[in-house]
């Protein structure tokens, strides 16, 4: 059986993680092709319903990636996003999807290495978990 190829959505904020992903590209730093990036102005814009939409659309895992804790372009949008992600993880656990398929990461626009580590590590985790129960 061929290795399971997950579908991973990375919701990236425009000011930091999107730039970190750009920089990873510029530096030809490799990471799994399963990572698909959608842009938002700030992770504070991310409504839990967007994440649920992604799982409904067949995502095996969702990353929310924002600025460093004290470096949010919009002061504290990333902190608000983190609170929502933590609450949502509990709910995903309760409905049987598990709390490991959603994760929040923090990085500056200069931290391409952090972006690559985050998406690579998360992809490995999802490969181990297997396809989302919603896709089976």
């Amino acid at each position: 059986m061929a290795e399971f190829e997950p579908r991973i959505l990375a919701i990236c904020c425009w000011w930091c993680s999107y730039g970190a992903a750009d920089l990873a590209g510029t530096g030809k730093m490799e990471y799994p092709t399963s990572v698909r990036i959608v842009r938002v102005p700030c992770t504070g814009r991310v409504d839990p319903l967007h994440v649920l939409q992604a799982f409904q659309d067949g995502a095996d895992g969702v990353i929310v990636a924002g600025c460093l804790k004290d470096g949010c372009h919009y002061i504290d949008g990333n902190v608000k996003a983190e609170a929502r992600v933590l609450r949502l993880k509990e709910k995903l656990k309760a409905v049987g999807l598990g709390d490991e398929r959603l994760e929040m990461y923090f990085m500056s626009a200069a931290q391409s290495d952090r972006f690559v580590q985050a998406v690579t590590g998360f992809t490995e985790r999802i490969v181990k978990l297997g396809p989302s129960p919603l896709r089976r």
Partner: protein
Amino acid sequence: MSETVRIGVFVCHCGMNIAKSVDVRAVREYASTLPGVVWAEDNEFTCSESGQKRIREAIKEHNLNRVVVASCSPKLHELTFRRTVSEAGLNPFLFEMANIREHCSWPHYHQREKATEKAKHIIAASVERARWLEPIGKVSSPVKASALVIGGGAAGMHAALSLADYGFDVHLVEREPILGGRMLQLGKVFPTEDCSTCMSPMGLRQHRRCLCNAGVLTNPRIRTYTSSRVKNLEGYIGNFKATIQTRPVFVDAQQCITCGECEKVCPIEVPNQYEGGLRKRKAVFLPHLHALPYSYILDPDSCSKCGECVEACPTMAISLAREPAEANVEVGTVVVATGFDEYEPRGLLGYGEHPDVVTQQTLASMLDPSGPTHGRAVRPSDGSVAKCVAMAQCVASRDPKSHAYCSKICCMIALKHAKSIKEREPDTDVTVFYKDIRLPGRNYEDYYYDCQRLGVRFGWGDVVSVTKADRGLELTVSKGGGGTENVGADLVVLSSAMVPSKDTEELARTLGLSLGSDGFFAELHPKLAPIDTRLDGIFIAGGCQGPKDLAETLNQAEGAASRAAILMAKGQVEMDLTKAAVDESLCIGCANCVYACPYKAIEMTSSGVARVIEVACKGCGICAAECPARAMELRHFKDQQIDAAIDGILREA
């Protein structure tokens, strides 16, 4: 969607940058099958003039009302293509970019097949999103023709004078009772070696002027608030409301004739902080020979309220019953120029333990000809002139355990002082212990040669301890590789780090600005917007943004004044309406958005629904995610638009 969506997709080869690892033609063919796409083509370089021309032609030929360009990061060319489509008559926000270079062809350059599939996902996301894009208009708002300048040191005074020259009213707020800031305590300043008090705002148009004649206090456009702080700032670019709080000022500067009668009768004596504590002062005193305003001041912290001075004053300028005052001002722009402090190296290298271990700032006071020791470097322990001076560089700077950054100006300060001492007292021994000597400014390297010529010695090594010896002090210098050397000195001068001035954190909270990890105010971009901040209309200048010498400080102050003046001269700001909007019919009046907004850009109307102050909104969308009724939307990143991108990118190609 009232009109039929007609999307054109333009896939860029970017030479080989994309085409090498993505099958551009396969991607174009896939794009042409996506719903809503009526035209798809591929171009060698879509951003080139010929590529942009193709977009404009295709819009006309195929009656396109949405455009997707699949090429590099939108950080590079989103604005380029927005302009292109608007030249062809489309609203610039009916354009969407698919990042198939930075996010695809480059990181996956070894995996052509998979990269091609991923490029299809990315384009599908952009096409889906494009279907839901809406035209975005502009909003404009007036900018008041007055500025608030916070900090009355070199940067603040210079900015205030420039703004007044431009013809704008200025409110200048200074924490201390006198203007001048750190500059007053520098003695002579490099590289021209004039007195720092003469270095205050001048500019070519005014020629050189003394601080006491700088014109800040007499300029009819500048209103100065000394002993004051900005207690509150509300509003947004063009329309700020500031509350300025002034501590009680017990001596009326208008009535004080500086006769000194008050000082004679005052029974209190404390060290004078304006002279490095080298001389005593009374509780009522003249803080500086060049004090601006030129008036005695009364320090309430040391005053015993005996009332002797009140009796002695011949002009009845003193009253101990004065109250704090508050003023509310409305301004269009703000310049923050709150400067830096010298780090107090207590506990380091004998500072605070041995009186003859001082900092460069204290030495600057000594070397000031009008200062407490009349220009001579003396040992504070007995007042004798120092015969052997040792300086230690990089104290609490370039040290990850305290301040990791280079304080930048201490090398020049040390050399300036070493040179002054040798010029005045050639027999005095001066040694500078350093790790690196950094003199990158224009004409600054000359100081190094001057010092060598005058006999200043440079010792490479890190001073690790200063202890009391039989005669004077003994320094232990680490020479690297485990070797140490012991050196005697009778005056040790520490070149201590430059740190943000003490109220920086509080002011950052009041203004809503962010600080860097070093504690200084953060600029919007280190190269492209070094004077701007995260808040439109608020600018930073001088030492509050990081260690700087006077030349750089005045440069930046001029820049900040100019940035503020541009806004005020235009008289209004225009911005894209990529901002939050409320659907009043859905709003339940919970006010969650009001509390969540980091910019105070949402208010509740009298009818109990939320209202967005569009000029203050920065477009983060936090409110939209917090809204439990989905009544709040962020234009250009509406729920539908984000969901469409997610649907598109997760779809199997």
